[in-house]
């Protein structure tokens, strides 16, 4: 089935795609936004820790298989794997995320200049600086809605405008964390949150739901692209959102430009949509899959892949930290937690490349707490039950969002033989986190232990960084941007080298991923890219 020609196509209605689609639409471009999932609405049934642990909108794994190549003693073994936390709905992860809305620091865009060449990594500078992105961070903060106060964070890069909403007041646990940090000479400050501390954008303020991370907000006070930019785009009359569609191919014309995409609708009917501009914003695993699936005479190894960089440098964050229990109750489970953080260790740590922000964790319920135990504690029986009874209100853990070292072997590829439900080659994942990440994790776990000790924990244990492939939450880096087409996939605006109307609009373009949650940066890059496209189109 053919459709009326559009000015622009955006594939994926997440943090990046939602922003780009809205910006194009309100600037007069007839835009079609494709999303494989549907709208998620709050309903009491999904307000349930067990169901949430299985995913708010579980993906059909039979239709969307993936494999992981594992290195074993017997060589490489191919095993089935899940999709991590990639979203499957309008707004993607911005519907049920923790909503931390960080700006990266200056150094995060200049990792190679700051730390020099780091062997066996692909550490590089971004082609843009913090200052290039600053106006778009501001736009994202105001249009999406962020509550914060950067005045106590001396490490934050300068900003021109304040946050649109005041920071959230911290809790007793936040005070405990902050006081301990201050005694250690550190600089705690409120975590910037894409959540309403006061009524904003005609929606109510946060009600401190007990579990926020992984939840759809019951009062719509958490801000993602689903309740901000996407509805604005639709209101403009220029945005056609097509949900439950699976895009399977970028169609290339004889002139070397993208002419549209092929997709399947809910009833498995194949469609073709043509457009002048195609933006792929399908996540750092799905975007490279789409590029690699399409080949032409000029790009025999996949679009933008003549130098083999598509799908490479897959990274996220090597989370680690420490956990502890206290001799008395330290919180009363007022949600959502994670109100305070420090950025003292994000950079300039001796012997460490980069570092991490540290915050105390979001709250969770009885089910997840049943898995939080010191390594020496039994995992069942009376002792396990007693720990659960005694420590639910006496426990916290510190999370370090460790900046990963990009490496060429950590990657997304398309499977040679296996196909998904729609006949598209499936995603294969290979490679592991860089060994340096674990050195950095050790360093950050040490820092976390110091803070917990200072805070008065009577039992502390380390939570080490996890090995393996990083294609989970915060995935990034697989179509990195750069000025040199031989060592990058897109230019500084996300335009694929050599195809001037094909763009990548998600975290795939991140050269490095900082020591912070990436959603605000993805959004800011979306605003910047859209401005570039609009100017070019006129």
């Amino acid at each position, binding site marked *: 089935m053919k459709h009326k020609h559009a000015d622009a196509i955006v594939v994926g209605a997440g943090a990046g795609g939602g922003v780009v689609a809205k910006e194009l639409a309100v600037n007069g471009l007839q835009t079609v936004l494709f999303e494989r999932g549907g709208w998620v609405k709050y309903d*009491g*049934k999904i*307000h*349930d*820790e*067990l169901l949430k642990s*299985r995913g708010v909108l579980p993906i059909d794994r039979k239709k969307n298989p993936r494999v992981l190549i594992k290195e074993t003693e017997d060589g490489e073994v191919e095993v089935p794997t899940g999709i991590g936390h990639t979203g499957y709905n309008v707004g993607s992860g911005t519907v049920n995320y923790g909503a931390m809305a960080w700006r990266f620091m200056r150094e995060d865009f200049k990792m190679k200049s700051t730390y020099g060449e780091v062997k066996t990594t692909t550490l590089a500078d971004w082609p843009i600086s913090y200052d290039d992105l600053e106006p778009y961070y501001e736009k994202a903060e105001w249009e999406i809605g962020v509550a914060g106060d950067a005045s106590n964070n001396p490490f934050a890069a300068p900003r021109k405008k304040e946050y649109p909403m005041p920071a959230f007041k911290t809790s007793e646990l936040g005070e405990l964390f902050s006081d301990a940090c201050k005694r250690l000479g550190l600089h705690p400050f409120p975590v910037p949150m894409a959540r309403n501390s006061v009524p904003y954008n005609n929606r109510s303020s946060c009600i401190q*739901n*007990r*579990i926020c991370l992984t939840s759809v907000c*019951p009062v719509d006070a958490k801000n993602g692209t689903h309740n901000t930019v996407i509805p604005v785009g639709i209101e403009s009359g220029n945005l056609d959102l097509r949900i439950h569609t699976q895009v399977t191919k970028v169609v290339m014309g004889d002139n070397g430009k993208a002419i549209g995409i092929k997709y399947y609708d809910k009833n498995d009917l194949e469609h073709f949509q043509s457009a002048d501009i195609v933006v792929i914003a399908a996540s750092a695993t799905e975007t490279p899959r789409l590029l690699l699936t399409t080949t032409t005479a000029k790009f025999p190894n996949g679009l933008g892949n003549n130098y083999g960089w598509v799908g490479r440098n897959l990274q996220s964050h090597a989370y680690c930290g420490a956990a502890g229990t206290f001799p008395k109750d330290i919180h009363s*489970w007022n*949600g959502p937690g994670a109100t305070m953080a420090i950025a003292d260790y994000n950079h300039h740590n001796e012997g460490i490349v980069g570092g991490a922000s540290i915050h105390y964790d979001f709250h969770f*319920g*009885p*089910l997840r*707490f*049943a898995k939080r135990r010191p390594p020496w504690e039994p*995992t*069942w*029986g*009376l002792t*396990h*039950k*007693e720990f*659960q*009874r005694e420590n*639910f*209100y006496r426990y916290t853990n510190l999370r370090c969002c460790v900046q990963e070292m990009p490496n060429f072997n950590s990657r997304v590829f398309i499977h040679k033989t296996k196909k998904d439900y729609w006949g598209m080659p499936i995603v294969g994942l290979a490679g592991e986190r860089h060994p340096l990440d674990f050195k950095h994790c050790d360093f950050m776990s040490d820092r976390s232990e110091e803070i917990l000790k200072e805070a008065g924990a009577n039992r502390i244990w380390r939570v080490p960084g996890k090995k393996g492939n990083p294609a989970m939450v915060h995935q990034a880096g697989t179509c990195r941007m750069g000025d040199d087409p031989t060592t990058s996939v897109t230019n500084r605006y996300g335009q694929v080298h050599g195809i001037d109307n094909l763009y990548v609009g998600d975290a795939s373009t991140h050269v490095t991923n900082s020591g912070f949650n990436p959603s605000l940066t993805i959004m800011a890059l979306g605003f910047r890219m859209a401005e570039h496209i609009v100017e070019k189109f006129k």
Partner: protein
Amino acid sequence: MNPWGSEKLVFCGVPSSNFHSMERRAFIKNTALIGGGMLATYSCTERETSSYYFFTVTEASCVIAICEQIIPADKEPGATDAEVINYIDRELRHIYKQHQKLYRNGIAALQASCKQLKGELFEDLPFDEQTALLIDMEKSKLPKTNWRDAKQGAFFQTIRKHTIEGFYSNPQHGGNKDHVSFEMMRIEPPYLF
């Protein structure tokens, strides 16, 4: 009616969609001892025989005893009181369908091990002896000859995970009867999280 009003909890009198052939065999064997006349009321009696969707009555006794080991009663209720068995039984029909074989073979293998080592069924052994057996099962140290059709370590971890889920999740799912685990943890209503 549960607080969500979404699904009524019904355990008895609902024809099982996965009426298992082993259960059928066990039933026929049992009723044959009572008399041929009973077979006429087959389906009705079957419902009374096992109120579970998946487990036979004997299997359920074993599972209940294992769950009680994972979360024992002390001054506060344990897995048996919380009816964790109902959670596992229900989920085995749906999201854990793929574990049905592991449970069926795992229970049989554990019982065979118990008979060989102790001469009794697992659920009839003293609490401490059950604990010792499960510690061995967790470490895959029960006699290998009984475990040809199921991996004992995997069976232990699966039932451990399911017990914890049933006990600490919402009663909507079948376990945690009367919110016993939430009360134990001093969690106050509303239980929306």
